[in-house]
């Protein structure tokens, strides 16, 4: 296994201590971690899911726009943060494994280091839950 960059390790450690849903992707855009709060919102802990690529993520959780259409991977704030090295913000809907859907605001920012972009962090702000899912505490 290749050693993760220190900046990603520290970001993961910080996110682990937060009660705000937060997601971490590496420099290739692969989801490498999300915290317990995010796991509660999705209905699946990261330890159960593991590292996933964009395709699998999209099939499991979305995201979807206001008309229910899947949002292209390239339009996601995390992708903009990783590829363009800039912060990005969006509103969309995701589905959790228990059938609930969550309207969220998402802010993503890149992890830029002396050696270039190492990935990005996205923080989800749930604004509304629809359905019968347990949802966030």
């Amino acid at each position, binding site marked *: *296994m*290749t*050693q*993760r*960059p*220190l*900046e990603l*390790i*520290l970001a*993961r*450690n*910080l996110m*682990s*201590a937060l009660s705000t849903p937060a997601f971490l992707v590496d420099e290739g855009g692969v989801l490498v971690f999300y915290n317990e709060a995010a796991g509660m919102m999705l209905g699946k802990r990261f330890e159960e899911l593991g590292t996933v690529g964009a395709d699998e993520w999209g099939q499991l959780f979305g995201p979807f726009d206001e008309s229910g259409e899947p949002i292209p991977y390239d339009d996601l704030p995390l992708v903009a943060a990783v590829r363009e090295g800039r912060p990005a913000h969006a509103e969309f809907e995701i589905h959790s494994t228990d059938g609930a859907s969550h309207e969220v605001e998402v802010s993503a920012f890149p992890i830029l280091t*002396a*050696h270039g972009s190492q990935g990005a962090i996205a923080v989800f702000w749930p604004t509304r839950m629809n359905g019968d899912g347990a949802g966030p505490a």
Partner: protein
Amino acid sequence: MKVKLWGTRGSIPSPGPETIRYGGNTSCVGVTLSDGSLLALDAGTGIRCLGLALGEEPTRLHILLTHLHLDHIQGLVFFAPAFRPQTEIVIWGPASPEASLRDRIARYISAPLSPVEVRELPCDVSFRHCPQAEWEIGSARIRAASVAHRGPTLGYRIDDGDSSLAYIPDHEPALGADLDLLDEDWISGFELARDASLLIHDGQYADAEYPRHVGWGHSALSHSLAFARRTGAERTVLFHHDPMHSDEFLDRLGGEASRRWQELGGEPGAVGLAEERAEFELPARAREAVAPA
């Protein structure tokens, strides 16, 4: 590869009768590679004695700095070979977006903190940022990687033949993390220390002291032992002793470290505390025979 500990203390020099055995000089480790090349890992006050031991002969030396906290550079202006024109010194250290390595070190080697300026040093001195990729010095391959501490900080791995030395003197890998649960690729410094012949690692705090020092950039004993166990280092030396720790305290801490290491299933004698002037010889290990397909 020969390794000698010239300074084992962290934070600030702490000379006196109560620290005479483990030593009061701050971080410096001398390394003689198998081809005779000389390295100094950090330049705390221990490097003064290393300089005296080198004598008057012309010297070429590489100094590998983990970071620029004072306890890792304070000895530079008292390093006798730096004041001889026949000496060549290459100083390696972490890059920073703020200023070059030379300019950051010059903040210390300049008025009013120092009587001499970098440009006045008689030796041939140069400054290099550590590359991301492995590089060679003499017979060794050197690797540097960022590790969890306060500010830009590196750990080093030195491979010479089949022997390897990992040097991570200032390290808090368990900050916000459980080292027993993380996958190895998510542990700060893991690749530097993996299966090292000798790991010199931060051991600043007893477990009871750590809660008052969370985020200060150093390890508690439990963290150091967990890191050593996870990385599979053959031998571990706990380093960067807290200046408040007397020889008597460190004797007790060393005893506890040894006992707990064996409770974890480790070999007796494979973990110990760093003592100033201690020497280690890392022989080339025989490679395991590869079975035919």
